[in-house]
């Protein structure tokens, strides 16, 4: 444990430091992050995690961006061993911003499934709008069902209205339909709701997603919009529990 504090202190990172100092400190950690003795990687992982947390402290925008750039460069550097890249991309999930989007996009296109998944997670959390575009572009090209499910979910979490058509296409595939429905429910705009009505009765999750969409409208104050969905769902769903949930929603939106 003491070891990583020494490394970090040597790199001058906890107080900020320039890009060169950050790069130097990260470079020193990389061999340890990929130590052939797996048990020995832990202290280096914690050192990098602490650097990322420190840089992402409130009010330290410049330090966060500087470290983000360094980590983004390492994430795409083929000379960095895979276990180190995995941990680096994980830190970008927690603190990466716009500066990391291009690198994460590149990683997500790579052959390594673990890294690809880490990059998707990082883009899902990334606050930059460009991250949404990156995930959307990836979904356009993805043909594997598991990858599509992950990407649909990420876009749903980001409530990306521009993805509705792409995600709705997933309603036609039994493997991806549940995830597509849940993502559309999270987006919950009129186009998403329309797609979900088309899936009601075919995909069990469509009803749940419609409830989610209605609940979101209700929370935003659009009681009339919510009520319309609850009412139609209560009349159309064949699921007893969905009907009960829709009726509960109707009561809540009663004054609309």
């Amino acid at each position, binding site marked *: 444990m003491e070891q990583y504090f020494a490394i970090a202190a040597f790199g001058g990172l906890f107080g900020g430091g320039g890009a060169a100092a950050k790069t130097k400190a990260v470079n020193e950690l990389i061999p340890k992050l990929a130590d052939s003795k*797996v*048990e*020995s*990687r*832990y202290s280096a*992982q914690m050192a990098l*995690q*602490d650097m990322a*947390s*420190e840089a*992402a*402290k*409130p009010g330290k925008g410049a330090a966060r961006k500087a470290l983000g750039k360094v980590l983004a460069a390492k994430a795409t550097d083929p000379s960095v061993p895979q276990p180190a890249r995995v941990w680096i991309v*994980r830190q970008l*999930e*927690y*603190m990466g911003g716009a500066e990391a989007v291009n690198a994460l996009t590149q990683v997500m296109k790579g052959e390594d499934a*673990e890294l690809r*998944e*880490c990059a*998707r*997670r990082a883009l*899902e*959390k990334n*606050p930059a709008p460009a991250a949404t575009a990156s995930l959307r572009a990836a979904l356009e090209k993805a043909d594997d*069902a*598991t*990858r599509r*499910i*992950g990407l649909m*979910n*990420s876009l749903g*979490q980001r409530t990306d209205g521009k993805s509705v058509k792409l995600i709705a296409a997933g309603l036609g595939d039994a*493997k991806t339909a*549940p*995830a597509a429905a*849940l993502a559309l429910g999270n987006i919950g705009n009129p186009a998403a709701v329309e797609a979900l009505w088309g899936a009601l009765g075919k995909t069990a999750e469509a009803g*749940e997603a419609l*409830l989610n969409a209605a*609940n979101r409208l209700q929370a935003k104050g659009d009681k009339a919009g919510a009520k319309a969905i609850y009412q139609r769902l209560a009349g159309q769903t064949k699921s*007893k*529990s*969905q009907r*009960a*949930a829709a009726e*509960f*929603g109707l009561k809540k939106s009663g004054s609309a």
Partner: protein
Amino acid sequence: MGKKGHVRISRRVFLKGAAGVGALAAFPAIVPSTVFGQNAPSNRIAVGHIGMGLMMGSHFGKMLRTDDVQVVAICDIDRGKREKAKAAAESSYAKRDRSGTYKGCAAYHEFEELLARDDIDAVFIATPDHWHAPISVMAMRHGKDVYVQKPMTLTIKEGRIMSDTSRQYGRILQVGSQQRSERGFRKAVQIVRNGLIGKVRTIYTGLGEFPPPQTLPEEPIPEGFDYDRWLGPTPWYPYNRKRVEGNYGGGWRCFWDYGARKNGDWGAHHFDIIQWALNMDHSGPVEFIPKGYKGTEYQTHIYADGTKVLRNHPTKKNFMIQFIGDKGEVLCSRGGLESCQTTPAELRDTDFHDQETLSDVPAGFKGVWVYVSDQHEENWLECVRTRKTPICPAEIGHRTATICHLNGIAERLKRPLKWDPVKERILGDPEASGWMDRPRRAPYIYI
């Protein structure tokens, strides 16, 4: 359970059938007590158990011994555990069946199949924490009532979803923070809530420590163990036995990926009792300070009125929780009424009619009368039957788990957090806010 040798059918199946019969014929004036008696099929609750590891043991045994419960299905991703549990259930029922045999407990690898069964009323969920929310939410959407182990969730967002789902779908959800159903803790809560030790300023509680998580080398995945599904929505790591084992000293509980470490494991018990005693079940603290921050000796969370909860500060006589008020103190631990002690000592003799039920509040009692449950699973079963709210419903479980998670996030980030318990938001810290939920690994997307 019905009389020996009777065919076992569940309440749900019975009622479905009865409704059909009722449409065809007038109801008989006299019906046998075995049809509508306490243990008749009309009252028997059909239960499924999901996650047959360490924590399920006592629930499973208790349900098998409960007369008006029928365990109709079990589920585990470990073939060995699955087969053992099925055999145990069938053997238990066979001993009470005239024929001496019983084959009526289905075993599932995937919980989705168990939840899809219309004849199951309720489920116990005792998986690792990262599966609690996905399974609970899906169960409630399928119309099942739920008993879920503590801590209720892996993330704060999951808790909000679970609580809202429980309310919207009208499902009974009990969180397994069973200390609420222990008389010693209840007594302590009653004393605090009734102001007998004055204004509480400070609370000490011991959660212990786990060893740090480890980076572990890859090992072969054992035959019959579905490791990918064990990981579920959490990030992929190579298999190692130490990562997945369930034990009280570590195992998966050590890893951030599957919970909030000790803050989740024991915080879900002790922070829960503290919330109850402070009458904060629908709110929570406003600040979380990790151990080590600017010399902070003990991890601390603080309520809006300044009340502080210090983790691992020594308590008198090693009691689990010590409430310190202006006029006295209360100590409480597990082990019944004797495990509640007070200063001054006579406070403990305050008569709250502990043995009585909630409906038996003595006439003229002016104080605070807290929810009375003396057995956590029985309280849940009673609520499944009566649709009454259980002692630890989803909203309470969510609020307690939120404290566990926020302490965990502060510990991980090594900095204090400010929390708005009304809007349920971390204030002024985008990175920390990102931890309110976690991305999920495909294809394990359920919420």
